[in-house]
């Protein structure tokens, strides 16, 4: 499977190269110097061609429009993880694949993540239902916005819901908009697992146990720190 993936990576690179040569336009506008991504090619819409990971639209663009940015950066940084060609029978085994794949894609430079994702999808079609969750893992941090549903994102409670309710905090406070944030699904899983695993930081207890009986402020601080440290929010 790995050699197949590498084969597909090389093939996709050659395909990109061919498309880019055919479509090359020396007059294509670039992002002005001094801006993020300055000097890179742009479609002129102001969005830039290297935004990467910003949604299904990017995937569509990568599929149908040649991108010199992807071409320039399309060199896998390390070997892809093992991905079974057949769908693993258990959700646990599948979620392990999602996590390893998401982590690998996140390690790639932004401009080549879409190509890497498409390449893998070609070889392991069973991943398609989870592709939004894998894609969003590599997204840049988002703000606190739960107003619009987004594929691949979950609504997350900054102060943990169940333990806060168990400790007597009111449902209206626990489920208030200021305690909710939309975060990439796989990051949501990782943060939840962090709360449940014992940790040296908390005298060998889990963060959840440590926070038992603590006030709202301390819980919020921990919840906010987790969003920053797991790469969901900017510091």
């Amino acid at each position: 499977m790995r050699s197949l993936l590498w084969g597909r990576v090389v093939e996709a690179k050659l395909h990109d190269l061919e498309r880019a040569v055919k479509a090359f336009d020396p007059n294509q506008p670039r992002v002005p110097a001094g801006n993020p991504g300055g000097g890179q090619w742009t479609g002129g819409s102001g969005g830039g061609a290297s935004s990467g990971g910003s949604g299904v639209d990017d995937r569509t663009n990568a599929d149908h429009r040649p991108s010199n940015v992807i071409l320039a950066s399309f060199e896998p940084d390390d070997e892809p993880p093992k991905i079974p060609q057949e769908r693993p029978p258990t959700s646990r085994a599948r979620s392990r694949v999602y996590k390893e794949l998401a982590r690998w894609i996140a390690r790639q430079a932004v401009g080549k993540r879409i190509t890497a994702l498409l390449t893998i999808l070609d070889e392991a079609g069973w991943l398609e239902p989870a592709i939004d969750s894998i894609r969003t893992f590599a997204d840049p941090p988002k703000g606190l916005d739960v107003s619009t549903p987004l594929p691949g994102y979950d609504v997350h409670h900054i102060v943990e819901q169940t333990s806060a309710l168990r400790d007597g905090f009111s449902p209206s406070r626990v489920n208030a908009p200021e305690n909710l944030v939309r975060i990439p699904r796989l990051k949501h899983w990782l943060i939840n697992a962090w709360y449940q695993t014992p940790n040296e930081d908390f005298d060998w207890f889990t963060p959840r146990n440590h926070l038992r009986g603590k006030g709202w402020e301390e819980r919020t601080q921990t919840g906010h720190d987790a969003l920053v440290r797991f790469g969901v929010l900017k510091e």
Partner: protein
Amino acid sequence: MTRMLQDMQTSQLVERFIDVCVAQNEALLDDRLAKFSRLFEQMRLILEELKTRPGDQRSALLALYDHPNVQVRLKAAKNTLAIAPEATLEVIRSIAASGEYPQAGEAGMSLSNLERGIFRPT
């Protein structure tokens, strides 16, 4: 378990520490949190044994800062903070910035918890 650890040489304890941390990494990837908790307790007992030996033999874990497994690096670093704080913080910071989740997240949280005075290495 404790008795068995007492009979082991320090180098054997370090090998055992590595095995346990590698198994922890697998448990995290597989979402086997109960298994992780058991492995965490095994690691705690190994650390306790190393700490009680003359000269605090947790210093033997400093050699693991370059271990290829990120869970081994993270646990070696967090559990030697009291012995070599500066070198250890460098390891924890580099893991936090590595994007190697979930360890990157835990490392970052430990930095926050140190700043907040919640994590007090002994």
